[in-house]
């Protein structure tokens, strides 16, 4: 249903008046909510410019601290994303293998890591691995946990991408005498990756969101940094910058992710215009995968 107008007649004068009244009332409700929030903030003195200035004042050390935390966040996300992409591609190929001894264990691995909550995986890396002699810091645990679960999610995404390449491509490659690994690496994967690029970037948004679990396991990413800044400032000046610091941390997350989402959409539009990759189904992450934490268990399509 591309447009909702197919559902009803083009509005006549009376319907248009109803819509205008609805627009007016709806606008009032939205404005009232915004006003209520501002009043609530104002009456608690949270809108005082001096309280917000601390965020941009280099002497307070806040911009530097957030800068470092942002680098930490991006670092763990980058490591996990690269590792998860490589392992995910391997697992996807493994799951599409013709041999059962390959397919079955790979499928089990993928399903297991999709079924376990991400936080439990990270805690497992952090708490259990040291007891068997593998020293691991919060960064390692977070990166490893994120890698393991994203690899399973990405494997499913890659598999869908490989299967979505037209069957004729594989058949033609086989008819030319290519071996199975050649068909996969020279013909199927390049086309699949091209189609999956927007989805990969969208998955990066999910991964960045999940990196905030570092807060719970004690890794100094944005949230944990905000918390420790608050503790520091509360000790020195009392409880006056708390709200501002939290809002700043949240806005940094939202800002990066909005830019990435926008990038994913822009690339998708470009791919759609490209004739070689034309007629691809719209590449969008399913709602449950966007939620992070590994998403659901029921196969998509």
């Amino acid at each position: 249903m591309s447009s909702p107008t197919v559902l009803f007649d083009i509005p006549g004068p009376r319907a248009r008046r109803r819509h205008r009244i609805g627009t007016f009332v709806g606008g009032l409700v939205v404005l009232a909510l915004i006003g209520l929030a501002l009043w609530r903030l104002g009456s608690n003195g949270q809108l005082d410019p001096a309280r917000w200035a601390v965020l941009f004042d280099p002497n307070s050390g806040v911009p530097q601290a957030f800068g470092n935390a942002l680098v930490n966040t991006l670092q763990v996300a980058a490591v996990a994303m690269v590792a998860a992409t490589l392992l995910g591609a391997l697992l996807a190929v493994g799951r599409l293998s013709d041999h059962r001894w390959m397919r079955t264990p790979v499928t089990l691995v993928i399903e297991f890591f999709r079924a376990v909550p991400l936080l439990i995986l990270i805690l497992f890396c952090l708490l259990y691995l040291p007891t068997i002699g593998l020293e691991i810091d919060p960064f390692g645990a977070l990166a490893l946990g994120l890698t393991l679960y994203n690899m399973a999610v990405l494997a499913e995404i890659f598999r869908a991408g490989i299967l979505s390449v037209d069957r004729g491509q594989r058949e033609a490659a086989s008819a030319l005498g290519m071996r199975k690994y050649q068909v996969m690496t020279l013909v199927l994967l390049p086309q699949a990756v091209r189609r999956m690029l927007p989805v990969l970037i969208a998955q990066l948004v999910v991964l960045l969101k999940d990196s905030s679990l570092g807060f719970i396991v004690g890794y100094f990413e944005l949230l944990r940094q905000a918390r420790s800044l608050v503790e520091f400032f509360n000790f020195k000046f009392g409880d006056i910058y708390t709200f501002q610091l939290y809002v700043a941390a949240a806005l940094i997350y939202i800002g990066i992710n909005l830019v990435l989402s926008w990038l994913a959409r822009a690339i998708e539009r470009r791919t759609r215009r490209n004739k070689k990759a034309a007629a691809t189904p719209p590449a969008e992450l399913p709602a449950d995968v966007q939620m992070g934490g590994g998403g659901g268990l029921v196969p998509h399509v």
Partner: protein
Amino acid sequence: MSFLADNFDLLRDAFLTTLSLAVLSGIFALVLGTLLTAMRVSPVKPLRAAATFYVEVFRNTPLTVVFFFLAFGIVEIDLQFPSRFITAVAALSLYTAAFVSEALRSGINSVPPGQAEAARALGLDFRQTLTTIVLPQAFRTVVPPLGNVWIALAKNTSIAAGFAVTELAAALVRLSNQNADQLLTVFLAIVAAYLVITLPSAWLIGVIERRTAIIR
């Protein structure tokens, strides 16, 4: 095994907390998500804009940040939830509602426009088109995505552990602090407890999907 039996009370309470977190948040998220979807397809522009804004913001915010704000942020503006459990339910519902709305919208979009056009051509009005043609088909395509959102929600309840709700992940941390030698057993038990929620859900969704499937 005797170790698990010794801590049976803690594990059972934690499991029930996780389950009730998931169920309550699921219900609230479904209600709020449906409301948001209705706003997003409505002809009233401010409502449409407000709902789109809500979904965009929550899609790009980590769930941990939502928890964080409801637990530590809103105290600063003199608001507070009566208990930690309710804070967790609120955070999970607000976050999940955005994704319920996404799933529902993609379900409605998946009904081919020809269906609604044919209904209109047959003389059905707006209400009839929606209730007898579009929504029944949309509901069927929406079963797997909504089910997956439910499973993801059940797994996401683990984040409440970071905010002082004693559910399964928190029980895991508590037990592992006391009994370093039994760590693997504890992990297996906790993972099994999550699987008890997610695997039957996945199976049930599969059954409903097959029952309601339509060939296009």
